[in-house]
């Protein structure tokens, strides 16, 4: 931590595990998601780069601020969301590449910044003075109470499993062992967490476009909406990358591992899309019941099993 190489740091933040790589991967995942969902529904679907076209188009659109909005919070929310998710993306090991910023306890930092994202969205939604955004922000806040718990237990389990709070140690301790199967409940709980965090279909309650018109983003136009979309893309790549880092053992083969990592991220995104495409949206009270009880119990169960197996 003492002697940081500034150029390498900038490279990490802006290019390789950071902004450029993760936004590229995220846009690719979002595009594949739309394509794959269209194929399931028997359509041809948009081109894979469609999310990129949408983003670039939003940059040339006019930027409107509603007259009654709280201007400071309204402007700050997309920047906060984008900044926190880009920082997280610079901390995540891809393959066996160790980010320079990684330190003991970085997974706790990652947890905080991933929660910050939701707060940014809630701030943006409630400051834009639109009733639909307000409803949506309230729904997101209700969801936040229940859906962060699986991530906490995943981090706790992985910390116990690898006896370390450093993400790169968690990555390198994984091996193909039969005992690794006991991580299955926590992996499933984490998968549910990804779907709730990205508000994908069974859990797309805060952005339900048929009831509350995309919710939080109702009043956002132009560049600010583009920032939100971009942070959503980066969030997608960060959360899938974290899944691979936590649960999938890979051999250390330099850049080949990085390619395998990307391929696995794509496969995971396809699995998530499949779940998304076959389910309809549930109500907020059903979400609290299903997620708050069953998924959280699964996460706690997974944690307890690992605790006992590690002889504690």
């Amino acid at each position: 931590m003492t002697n940081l190489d500034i150029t390498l740091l900038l490279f990490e933040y802006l290019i390789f595990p950071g902004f450029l790589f993760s936004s590229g991967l995220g846009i690719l995942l979002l595009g594949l998601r739309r394509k794959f969902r269209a194929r399931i529904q028997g359509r041809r679907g948009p081109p894979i780069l469609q999310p990129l076209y949408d983003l670039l188009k939003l940059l040339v659109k006019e930027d409107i601020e509603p007259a009654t909005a709280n201007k400071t919070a309204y402007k700050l929310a997309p920047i906060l969301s984008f900044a926190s998710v880009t920082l997280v993306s610079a901390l995540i090991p891809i393959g066996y590449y160790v980010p320079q910023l990684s330190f003991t306890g970085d997974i706790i930092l990652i947890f905080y910044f991933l929660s910050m994202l939701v707060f940014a969205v809630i701030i943006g939604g409630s400051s834009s003075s639109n009733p639909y955004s307000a409803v949506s922000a309230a729904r997101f806040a209700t969801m936040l109470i229940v859906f962060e718990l699986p991530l906490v237990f995943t981090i706790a389990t992985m910390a116990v499993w690898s006896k370390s709070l450093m993400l790169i140690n968690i990555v390198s301790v994984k091996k193909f062992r039969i005992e690794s199967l006991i991580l299955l409940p926590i992996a499933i709980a984490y998968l549910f967490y990804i779907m709730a965090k990205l508000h994908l279909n069974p859990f797309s309650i805060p952005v339900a476009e048929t009831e509350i018109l995309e919710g939080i983003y109702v009043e956002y136009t132009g560049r600010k909406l583009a920032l939100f979309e971009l942070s959503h893309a980066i969030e997608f790549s960060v959360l899938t990358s974290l899944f691979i880092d936590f649960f999938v053992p890979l051999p250390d083969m330099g850049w080949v591992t990085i390619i395998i990592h990307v391929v696995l991220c794509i496969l995971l995104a396809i699995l998530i899309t499949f779940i998304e495409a076959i389910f309809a949206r549930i109500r907020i009270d059903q979400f609290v019941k299903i997620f708050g009880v069953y998924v959280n119990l699964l996460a706690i169960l997974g944690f307890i099993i690992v605790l006992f197996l590690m002889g504690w």
Partner: protein
Amino acid sequence: MSRISSSLLKRSIWVYHLNTGSCNGCDIEIVAALTPRFDAERFGVRLVGTPRHADVILVTGPVTIQTIDKVKRIYEQTPEPKLVVAVGTCACTGGLFKGSYSIKGPVNKVFPVDYYIMGCPPRPHNILKGILEAVNLFKKRGDKK
């Protein structure tokens, strides 16, 4: 710059559907044009729920006196560059209701219309074709802002 932006706007078309007191026939056909059978998403067309996100406003119906304030407001809420496509005979000319005491007249009396799709109601193919032809007008209009 305007060439780049017009080619971008052609690839990603977010459509807002605005009913100004129509009989619901054109609305059903618009929804039909967005179903998996016609698959508007393959051209980047997406139905959005809010005028703030819209690039193209699809207007149906003769503008009735009751709706006129809201219709004007929705037009103003849509960010530039935007296009207005009038769908159906009522929106284009007033159709059956032309000269009625309860309508303001066709849509182009309220705000400028860029493209007209005739028919009562127009077929889904025509609506989709109309949207895709209308977005070429982004280039001609240039930076109107």
